[in-house]
């Protein structure tokens, strides 16, 4: 009967406790149960408990944190054992055993505390690692999203980038020879044939559209105003047309899609009598004939 109650209590304890505490309580309980059930008069419950508890704390790898209590427990247990062997007073044995058990229990709690604190230290390190991992994952996820967004944006640009649409967006004008896109003087430095960075985006868009339509041919014509020597103006207009060609080839357009010509000052679109007119005359025209058709020369 007593042992049954003890077993039930033991099981209940088992489910509620963990590790060292569990084993510790289990041994104590079992000993108590044994002592209670025993019919032998010389069995002293307190002594049995102490005999079970003391070696347990002595065996713990963390016994060092409670060295004094462990050694006090051992001394009292030895005294209790000696008294018991010598047939000494039962009350004396009981008292020494109680002191031994108490010291062992205190030692056990101190060991459990040390173990919990060890665990806390380990957990702190682990927490750092998990935090870093979480941060990395978040960064990865963001990078992935950014990549996807960029891919989508690129796709959208690609889709919108047919030549016809680009020319329309760039305000090209229809003419008998095809669509004409005029690159104003602002895209070149004065008296220079080098494209300004301001023209790069237009070049990007045209190049992309031309790459997608390899049959499309573009005629690039350079024009100047009437200021300066005619010969020089002819050369400058050619170099400007060539600069545009180079920019397109750098952006992957095939060379045989592009023709260039320097027209000098011969084809003004406005009067050379005033500054505004002259500015309009300094230009590069890109003429896009319909795919497959010839680009006519003026």
């Amino acid at each position, binding site marked *: 009967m007593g042992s049954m109650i003890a077993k039930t209590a033991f099981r209940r304890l088992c489910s509620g406790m963990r590790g060292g505490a569990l084993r510790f309580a289990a041994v104590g309980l079992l000993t108590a149960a044994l002592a209670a059930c025993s019919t032998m008069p010389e069995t002293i419950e307190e002594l049995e408990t102490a005999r079970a508890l003391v070696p347990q704390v002595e065996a713990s790898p963390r016994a060092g944190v409670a060295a004094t209590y462990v050694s006090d427990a051992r001394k009292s247990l030895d005294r209790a054992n000696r008294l018991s062997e010598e047939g000494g007073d039962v009350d004396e044995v009981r*008292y020494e055993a*109680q*002191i031994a058990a*108490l*010291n062992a*229990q*205190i030692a056990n*709690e*101190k060991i*459990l*505390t040390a173990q*919990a*604190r060890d*665990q*806390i230290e380990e*957990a*702190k390190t*682990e*927490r750092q690692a*998990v*935090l870093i*991992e*979480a941060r990395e*994952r*978040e960064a*990865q*996820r963001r990078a992935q999203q950014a990549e996807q967004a960029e891919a989508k944006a690129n796709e959208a640009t690609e889709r919108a980038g047919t030549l016809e649409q680009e020319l329309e967006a760039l305000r090209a004008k229809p003419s008998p020879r095809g669509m004409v896109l005029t690159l104003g003087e602002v895209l070149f430095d004065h008296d220079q044939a080098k494209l300004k960075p301001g023209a790069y985006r237009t070049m990007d868009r045209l190049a992309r559209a031309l790459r997608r339509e390899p049959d499309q041919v573009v005629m690039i014509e350079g024009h100047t105003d009437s200021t300066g020597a005619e010969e020089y103006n002819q050369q400058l207009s050619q170099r400007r047309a060539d600069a545009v060609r180079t920019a397109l080839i750098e952006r992957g357009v095939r060379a045989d899609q592009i023709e260039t010509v320097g027209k000098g000052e011969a084809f003004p679109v406005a009067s050379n009598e005033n500054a505004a007119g002259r500015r309009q005359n300094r230009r590069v025209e890109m003429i896009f004939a319909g795919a497959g058709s010839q680009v006519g020369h003026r």
Partner: protein
Amino acid sequence: MNALEAAARSILSRLLVLGIAVAALAACGGVTELTEERVASSGTAVRQAEQTVGNSESGALELQRAKDHLQQAHRAVEDNEDQEAQRQAHQATLMAELAVSKSQSGEARRAADELLASIETLRREAGLESGDRPPR
């Protein structure tokens, strides 16, 4: 004959006086100073344990036992039982220490468990954020 009787009576009465004196001395002398000191210091240990344990559950039972031992130690002092007083005082002190160490280990255990649980939560949340998002 009379002289002998008188002598015997005198001896007897002296013995009686001595006996009474010894008994009186034993009764009035009480426990040793060392015992009183030990009982007093176990009282200090119990009060300290009371503060540490406070209202927490772990250590409460041991604290009550420490108080019981202390009470018995005081009673033994009153009854001039020197050894019993020392023993009860020693047990009261150890019980108080057990109460304190139990309360401390319970606290450390709780802190460790909370930390471990927080790490688990962190892990779960991180996993969810990176993996379980619906595709757009």
